[in-house]
């Protein structure tokens, strides 16, 4: 009995780990029934893997059997691997027992497709329903939508899950068609659109009636695999931007492709995942979501790929020296946010603190900006007299020589196979 469950967990956790979503925040499910758990407020990372990713949810597949054959997926039909499937009870017990020991914030449940979409989706729904109604579980539940599942099942799932997601997989429709002929972006848009509609509908009803049940309170997300197809960062960011706008997604995740199959359409096994690129995409995503940047400003025809050596904010600033230097004692909050080396919380502190008097170098350092980077772009009360304008290349050189990137020791092989 011990061994069997260990084996299943091994197989089904291993197969689920490539899904990068780990967030357990954004819900508002309080423990009001004196049951188990609470999913209100910001999420908690309970531990971190040796590769530095956070573990906050029990992330498993219900099964790794699959009738499809997507080239980038370990569970694909043609892959010769051990197959396993959990029972509904097993998933419920694992979740509850891990949660009670404070190992996790909740469950992230996904699945290969056995038999057909609805057959699989129905089992996922049974698990979440049992957790919520029988076990009175208020922890976080993220449910992966099975493409092609019926609206009724999606709707039922939405009554119990905190977040739902369905992966775009590849940034462009063409890329996806090559690697997963049975899938399409359209198929992803349908459930995303349907759930989004229901979310809006539920919140409209909420305004009228108090006791409307929660429906996917933490919203929807999606994942894009990068580096498996030859798309540019511009294509990736524009796709992400469109999905943020059209489906009010809470998050788009970018997952650097890790070769797991010998397929001539894909990078070979053993090649390094594009970690720097992945990191740059997240930084660019942040600029869109929290720094007031428009996607066009970050990537466009003239600048289709993010720089590898500098982050996208610095890169934008270097291309737009005409906006600098920014005077921290007088500039708009919006403009201060755009200074490389100044984050959201330091920018807020700056605008608050300057009401009490002009800000000097020392203040800025203590407030916590990265001064060495920011100093090229700002003026402050005691800034040295500027003799002439530095040009972008010179500033970049200084910043690079003063900082040591955490990636410098990693090999730079961003495989281009195409």
């Amino acid at each position, binding site marked *: 009995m011990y061994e069997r469950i260990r084996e299943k967990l091994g197989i089904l*956790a291993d197969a689920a780990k490539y899904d990068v979503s780990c967030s357990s925040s954004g819900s508002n499910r*309080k423990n009001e029934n004196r049951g188990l758990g609470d999913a209100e407020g910001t999420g*908690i990372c309970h531990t971190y*893997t040796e590769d*530095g990713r956070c573990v906050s949810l029990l992330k498993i597949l219900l099964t790794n059997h699959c009738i499809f054959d997507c080239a980038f997926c370990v569970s694909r039909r043609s892959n010769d691997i051990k197959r396993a499937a959990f029972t509904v009870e097993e998933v419920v017990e694992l979740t509850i027992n891990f949660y*009670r*020991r404070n190992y996790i914030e909740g469950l992230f449940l996904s699945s290969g497709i056995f038999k057909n979409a609805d057959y699989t989706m129905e089992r996922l729904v049974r698990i979440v329903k049992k957790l919520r109604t029988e076990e009175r579980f208020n922890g976080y539940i993220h449910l992966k939508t099975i493409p092609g599942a019926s609206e009724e099942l999606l709707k039922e799932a939405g009554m119990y899950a905190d977040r739902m997601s369905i992966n775009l997989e590849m940034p462009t429709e063409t890329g996806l068609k090559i690697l997963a002929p049975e899938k399409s972006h359209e198929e992803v848009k349908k459930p995303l659109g349907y759930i989004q509609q229901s979310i809006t509908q539920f919140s409209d009803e909420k305004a009228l009636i108090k006791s409307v049940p929660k429906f996917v309170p933490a919203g929807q997300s999606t994942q894009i695999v990068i580096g498996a197809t030859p798309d540019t960062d511009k294509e990736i960011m524009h796709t992400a931007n469109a999905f943020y706008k059209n489906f009010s997604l809470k998050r788009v995740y970018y997952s650097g492709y890790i070769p797991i199959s010998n397929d001539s359409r894909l990078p070979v096994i053993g090649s390094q995942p594009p970690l720097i690129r992945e990191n740059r995409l997240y930084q660019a995503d942040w600029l869109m979501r929290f720094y007031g940047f428009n996607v066009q400003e970050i990537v466009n025809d003239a600048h289709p790929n993010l720089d590898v050596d500098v982050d996208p904010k610095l890169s934008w600033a270097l291309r737009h020296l005409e906006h600098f230097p920014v005077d921290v004692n007088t500039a708009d909050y919006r403009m201060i946010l755009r200074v490389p080396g100044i984050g959201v919380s330091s920018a807020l502190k700056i605008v608050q*603190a300057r009401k*009490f*008097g002009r800000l000097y170098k020392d203040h800025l350092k203590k407030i916590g900006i990265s001064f060495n980077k920011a100093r090229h772009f700002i003026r402050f009360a005691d800034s040295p007299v500027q003799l002439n304008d530095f040009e972008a290349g010179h500033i970049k050189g200084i910043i690079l020589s003063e900082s040591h990137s955490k990636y410098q020791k990693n090999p730079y092989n961003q495989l281009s196979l195409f």
Partner: protein
Amino acid sequence: METFVFDGTLEGLLTAVFYCYQKKSGRVKIVSSAHFYPDVFQQHFEVVSEDDKARRVWAGLKTKLDKQWMLNFYKSFLSEQPPAFQHLVDFARYIIDNEPGAESNYGNPDVLAISQLSQKVHREKHRMEAFIRFQKTSDGIFYAHIEPDFNVLPLLIPHFKNRYADQKWIIYDLKRKYGLFYDLEKVDEIVFDFSEEMSPGLNALPAQLLDEKEELYTILWKDYFRNVNIPARRNMKLHIRHVPKRYWKYLSEKQSDAI
């Protein structure tokens, strides 16, 4: 400069602030009795904690500071760091002496110190919310012990009480020798002696005290932790930054597989 010696409690610290005003003192030096070494050439004033006086100072601060800042004040106090006491007294006086809003002057060294100290304590509170690993005992209590750098136990009560409303639990601070016990109704402070067979170094109760399924779940959790790792992305520097080594001994997943 006058030296005030207080008993190390929050109440004592607030009482000290009260005396600053009553005695019309200039800037005073504040020391807790645990850190105080009397000096024959120096006079010092012994602050006796008084509920009443402490309450008045707390209420006074409350008229100027919002909830978040009051909490920051408390958190900084829980850092138990001697320089924190000085900053707290100076901060309290700065707030009392100035118009409301003075706390957003990050150019003031005490404001900055309190905001940074409270952040440090807050970070550790958050880490404990993440890193506590309960073990179920044979009498159905979920037990964990920890050794936080700061005295964060009081800050953990609402979180765990809320989250584990339907299970009894104990969180014990080995360093400060007290714990919290939730009995399904309320949380009480408890103190107990560690028996010989408890190994305080590990987050492990002796097997005979544990629920029969406990071993299975520890193993499954370790299995899970190992299985979700992606070797191609290994980055130990990042791992250690997120999970500092000093916490490892209480994390079941970081304990070598002796089982």
